[in-house]
């Protein structure tokens, strides 16, 4: 039995055509079903519906063999026990440093100012500013990061930016890109080896679908 962990919403919708390339079709719609384990047309393959940020944990702990997870979650999670086997080039966005329009970002970088940064990506943020030699105080938030600089709680935010509309609506601008983000196909290290004959054809088929798109 192979288990694939993925999250509802955009990632699920954009993953379906890739899974179809590997002849895996989900029989149920996770948006309308309350089931957390969904069957597929292949009786040896099932889907687990989990929170996006939990996908790497399920794969690392062996609850799932394969998963679809955002590069943002993977870089923050930093697991040594899974492979990031293929960039699926879906759910694309950017990890950005952003802040109020009035903020002089370039000057702060040149002066190596000590900054307050609000984010839920604490590891990625620390590493990014450490490379610049800038000390930061992190304010860990779980959502609505845009609020923090508006109420003078932080100088900057680090967050995912897709269209930029939320930043614009809150009078914020993006200052610097940290990285491009997209969904990755991840595989438990032991599963890839122990179930090589079952998993490798799926990986190859998904890679082909990604290249065709």
């Amino acid at each position: 039995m192979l288990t694939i962990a993925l999250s509802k919403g955009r990632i699920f919708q954009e993953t379906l055509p890739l899974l179809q390339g590997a002849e895996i079709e989900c029989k149920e719609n996770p948006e309308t079903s309350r089931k957390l384990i969904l069957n597929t047309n292949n009786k040896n393959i099932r889907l687990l519906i989990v929170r996006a940020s939990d996908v790497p944990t399920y794969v690392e702990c062996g609850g799932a063999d394969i998963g679809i997870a955002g590069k943002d979650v993977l870089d923050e999670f930093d697991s040594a026990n899974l492979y990031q086997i293929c960039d699926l080039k879906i759910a694309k966005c950017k990890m950005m440093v952003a802040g109020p329009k009035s903020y002089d970002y370039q000057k702060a970088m040149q002066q190596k100012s000590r900054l307050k940064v609000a984010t839920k990506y604490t590891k990625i943020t620390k590493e990014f500013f450490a490379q610049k030699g800038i000390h930061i105080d992190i304010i860990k938030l779980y959502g609505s990061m845009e609020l923090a600089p508006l109420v003078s709680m932080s100088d900057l935010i680090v967050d995912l930016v897709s269209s930029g509309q939320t930043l614009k609506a809150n009078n914020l601008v993006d200052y610097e890109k940290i990285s491009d983000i997209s969904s990755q196909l991840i595989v438990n290290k032991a599963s890839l080896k122990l179930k090589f004959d079952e998993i490798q054809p799926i990986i190859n088929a998904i890679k082909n679908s990604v290249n065709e798109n």
Partner: protein
Amino acid sequence: MITTWSIPDKVEDLYPQKALELEKNRRVLVDFFLKNKFELISPAMIEYADNVSFNGKSVDSDMFKLSDPLSGRLIGITPDLTIQTARIDNYLASSSNDIKSYCYCGPVLKADTSSFNQSREELQVGVEIYGNEKIEADISVVSTLIKSLKLLKIKNILLSFNDISIYTAFLKSLALSAHDSKQLRSYFAKKDLVSIKNLLGKNLNSSKISKIELFMDMFGDDKSLKKIQEFFVGNKVILDRLKNLKKIMSALPASVKIIIDLSDVDFYEYHSGFIFSAYSSKFTSPVAKGGRFENLTTNFGKKRPAVGFTFDLRSLLFVG
């Protein structure tokens, strides 16, 4: 009533049933090793930290360190018995060619563990052969590992083979900085091409990036060996290493499945040639790891070829 957990994270007490099971497994294995002419050693639990530090950051960062009140020097609680064994061998071997076979079973402590279910306290069991550079030593060590795991009733064993010198030679051909090379190793271990592109994208041309991508695809069962050989056509050193892997594979029982994975480089930095991991169903990480470590012994005086494996007996108690 106990309201707080009274021992540190990622260590555990063994209660009677598990403690007895552990002791039985230890006896079975040590008896098996002795019967197969491995000499039992029991390395010291603490070691001067600088004896370990020179072997590379990965061992050093795994080690609990404290100040020795007797000498004032920094000492470490050993995270891995291979280094101690190399030091002991340096005293016991009469010459560089003197073949010595050791076994051990002792506690080690790891300052941190990347795996979600791994305890920081291990009962590390292992065998090591020093002074024999021939392939027969590699085969003997892997065969001993297979028999050891079978004695512990671990089923469906799969071995993952690599030769770290192939990765080292490949990396050298990319002519990277020391910083990038070090960072790259962790990305290779995850087959994380996106992070490699982010790290090297500005400094490497697209043909080299494609080469890295192809190298990471050098993975599969024995049938994939041909594809790997074709990739390295003209590189005699690497082709010889692949031939060596093939010979070891041929010498093992057909019932043991073997995978080759050239980007499986998640090993201590003292390894220098043939490396391997053992997997089994029900375990979500490798059950055992081992390989060649010629460079390690040089630090203690004699340059000695060496090969061995280790695994944690305690972790085997909590599966199934």
